[in-house]
Structure formats: C-alpha cells, structure tokens
C-alpha cells in the first residue's frame, strides 16, 4: 500500500460564523477533496455553559469528516494534539476499512470483526499513523473576542509541532488567520516542517463582528494545492535521500 499524505485543516475559533457561505457545506466539500476538517472551539474562562453558537463547531467537523472539541483556554495544548491525532486515526481507519471491505465483502468493517482480529488491524492503523506524511493547515479566528486567547493558541501550536515531529513520518504546517485584511484569510506562517520558529505574532486583530468562517475555510482548502508546497516537498525529498544513506 502506498503511503499517502494526510491533509487536515484545523480551525480554531470561539464563535459562530456570520458571513458568507455555510461553513459546514465548505467542510463537506473539503472532505470530498480528501481534506479533513477539525474544529476546536475555545470557551471563555468564566463561561460555565456552552453558548449555542458553538454547536456549529461540531457541525463543521462532522461534515468535514473530522473531530471537534470544545475546551477552555488552559486545556488547549493537549486538545490540539488529541484532535489532530484522533482525526489521523479516524482517517486512516476509514482507509483501512475500505480495504477491508474490498477483501472481506461490503458488510465487513473494523467494528464487525471480533476483538482479536481487530487488534491486528489496529496495529496496521497505528503503523500508518506513525509513518504517514501529514499536512496541517491551521486556521485561526482572529476576530476581536479571540484577543486574549491568541498567545495560548500560539503556544499550543508550537507544542503540536513538537508532538508531531516525534513521529517517523514527515510533517508540514501552515498558519492562516481570518478574517484577513483584504482577502478572506491572511498568511501568518508558510508551509514548514516545524512551528518552533513562529516568531511572528498573530496580526493585529480585526475589530468588528465579522466572522466569515465559510469563505475562510474555502480559501484554506486551496492552499493545499499551491506550488510552493510541492516545491518544498521536493526539496525535502532530496535531503531525505541523503539522510537515508546510513
């Protein structure tokens, strides 16, 4: 089986979209293109209950084939990783499930196997999760209400990179923020294997209550096909051949 690259969009937001197309629809489209959409909703520290607006978080992830979680600021670091890893396993499990169906017939899936055999299949899934390449585009909501959360977001993204780079497979990360100054999204950090070097702080926050989550997701989707990405992967390939020399 050829090991492909897993593509994910990680949306970090604290509110409801209010402009442009329905983010769930865009997420469904992304999912069709092989891009998983994960969503993390951040709560205010003093919020005791989930505001109704955050229901959208779950909806987007559901139609994007991804994972969603709603957390307080303090738990963000750990959540970012859990969500990313869970979504990887979920995607890979989907792939393995399809293979299983081809071998064992349309009715068979991982859940239909007895526990003993399931263990062996999960080992394969785990192997794939460890060795596959991963591209994560992080899309951060930088509307005014996110102001005091952005330092934590930045920290948790560095942490994500530490975790993912402990894997055997290769990683690429990019960070975009929305709403952008002129466009739907602004580039904060271009595709790179590591995030430890994020020195640029998130751009100045946009005041006003616009949260165009849908258009931002759509724009983010296009970033996966960009030339710069292919080129940088080629470069990485060359260097990897050297490394493989020992």
């Amino acid at each position, binding site marked *: 089986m050829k090991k492909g690259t897993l593509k994910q969009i990680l949306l970090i937001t604290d509110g409801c979209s209010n402009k442009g197309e329905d983010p769930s629809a865009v997420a469904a489209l992304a999912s069709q293109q092989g891009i998983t959409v994960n969503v993390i909703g951040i709560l205010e520290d003093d919020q005791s209950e989930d505001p109704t607006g955050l229901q959208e978080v779950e909806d987007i992830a559901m139609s994007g084939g991804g994972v969603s979680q709603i957390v307080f600021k303090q738990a963000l670091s750990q959540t970012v990783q859990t969500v990313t890893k869970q979504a990887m396993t979920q995607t890979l499990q989907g792939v393995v499930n399809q293979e299983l169906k081809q071998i064992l017939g349309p009715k068979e899936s991982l859940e239909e196997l007895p526990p003993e055999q399931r263990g062996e299949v*999960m080992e394969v899934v785990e192997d794939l999760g460890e060795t596959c390449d991963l591209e994560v585009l992080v899309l951060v909501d930088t509307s005014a209400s996110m102001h005091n959360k952005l330092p934590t977001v930045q920290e948790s993204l560095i942490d994500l990179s530490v975790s993912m780079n402990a894997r055997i497979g290769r990683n690429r990360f990019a960070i975009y923020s929305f709403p952008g100054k002129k466009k739907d999204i602004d580039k904060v950090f271009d595709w790179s294997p590591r995030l430890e070097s994020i020195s640029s702080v998130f751009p100045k926050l946009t005041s006003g209550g616009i949260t165009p989550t849908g258009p931002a997701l759509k724009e983010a989707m296009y970033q996966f096909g960009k030339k710069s990405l292919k080129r940088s992967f080629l470069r990485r390939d060359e260097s990897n051949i050297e490394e493989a020399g020992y």
Partner: protein
Amino acid sequence: MNPTSKKQGINVRPGDVINGKWHHNRYVILKQLGQGAIGSVYLCESNGKKAALKISDKGSSVTMEVNVLKTFKKVQGNRLGPSLLDVDDWIDPRGRTYSFYVMEYLKGEELSTFVRRHGQEWLGILMLQLLEDLSNLHKQGWVFGDLKTDNLIVTHAPRRLKWIDVGGTTQIGRSIKEYTEFFDRGYWQMGSRKAEPSYDLFSLAMVMLHFYHPKRFERGSSPEKTLMRKLRNTAPLKPYESCIYKALTGKYMSSDQMRQDLSMILMQRKDTNTSQNTARRPNVQTSRTVRGNTPKPNTNSKKQPRQEHPTLESLAIIVVVFLFYFLYLILG
C-alpha cells in the same frame, strides 16, 4: 447538551449488567473507579470475582490499549501491570455499541497517600522498584509514556509499586501516544516526545518532584530554570538532587544507570538520615563536620579517657605478669 460530555457519555451505573457480545461473559458493575481521556473504569464482578472494567465509545483506542496489555503479558507475566482478562463489545439498551476490556483489579493505595502514611524513605525505594520495571519494559522495546503519580499504586502484600494505566505505552522510536503536561519533557522544553528510555526517566524524576509539590507549578517563561529552581529549593529531595538532575537533563541513557545511582544514594543515606532530620540543613557534609567538632563536649570527654585506657591497661597487665613471675621465682 454539552458536546464534551456527550462524547464520553457512557451511562453505566452500579447494578447495571454488561454482557459481552462475542464472549458472552456477564459483568455486574459495582462502582466507578475513575475516568480518563479514553473511557471510564469500573469495579465489576463476574463469577464472584472482582475485576476492573474499562469501557469506551472510542473502539479504536480501546483496541490499542488492549494491544499494549497483550504485549505486557508476553513481556513477563503480569508483574508490570494489571493482567488482561477479557476483551469484548457491549450493546447498551439503546443499541449503541461500546468496546470494553476487563483486567485484574489491583487493590492498593495511591503512591502519594502511601508514602505520606508510611514514611518518606519509601519514596526512593519505590522509585527503585519502578526503575527495575522500566528497565524490563525498555529492554522489550517499549516506553511507558504517560508516567505520572496518578498512574502508580502500591499494592499491600507485597508492598510493591504497580502501574495501572497503560494507555501511553509506546514502541521505542515512535512518538509518545499519551502524556500529561507536568510530567512531559516536551512541555518543559527539555527534549522531544520521541519514545526513548530517557523520556520515562524524566517523568520519573517529575513524579519525585510532584510528591513535594502536589499542586504542581507553572513552567513560566524559562521552563528549565523554573524546574531547576524547584529542584534546588525542595529540601527533602536534596540527597537525590544529582540523580534527579541527571534524569531531567537526559543524562541517563538507560534506567539501569539511574537505578545504580539511586540505590547508591539510598544505601548512603542511612547514616546521614538522623543528622539530616535534626539539622534540616541542605548540605549534609557541613552539618556532619559541625557536629563532629564542637557542639557536644560531653560525649567527647567521656570517650577520650576510654581511649587512653588501653595503654594503662597494658601497663597494668605487664605489672601483674611481672608480679606473678616474681612470685613464681620466689616461690619456686
């Protein structure tokens, strides 16, 4: 409804019965033992025997944990952790499927409670036991990963440290599956999250620190400095300082190295223990010299005449011998 709680929404209450879909075993739930990122653990009863049952709606995660428990079985019986008894699925009355596994119920005290009750000297000894187990695990190609105080219990007979949650156990060379920030060297920016023996040793050192800082502490802007300052300022850990320092900075390549250092410290500690308690000075050596020289003239004055005795005694013996010899000569 709360989406986070919805995800772990397994509503199992004491008295409920869980029937296995595949192996048809019957488990009666007695009480909840704990709740983690992946599912909940319950005390249950089956055929009159108590066992721990972990149930989750995340089937894949359960399967992964079961895989780890199975490898433990291969490694060396059930010394390393609870042994695996059963793996199965359960379909609840509403038709939803959950995965669960049943393991041996280990009855014991939490590490911190145990040490507080039985004395601090246990901390080092239990860590020594832990290092032995870790060494075995590492030799089999695995790293424990999520090593933290909560995951360690002390069983009563024999008094032995055992680990209970194996969810973080990872093959060496891969990325750590599960961890807790405070015990994670990645969080402290002291190394990667790659599964290697030194990763576990860092966590073990943090377990020792955590015992004296049960509320944990923040890493601050320069994590390494914070950590070192805490280590230096924790007086009871002074004897272990060099050992903990080496573990935190990744100087130990294997748990055996650390075990050697730690057992040396523990063997040495016995005689310095009393002086430490009275002086409570971090530096053991100075307190020892101070005690030797000045403060207790009483014991000194008692000792010194005794030390002079031997010469007097031998003189007396010689005199007596001569006296007898003299008498012998006269009488003879």
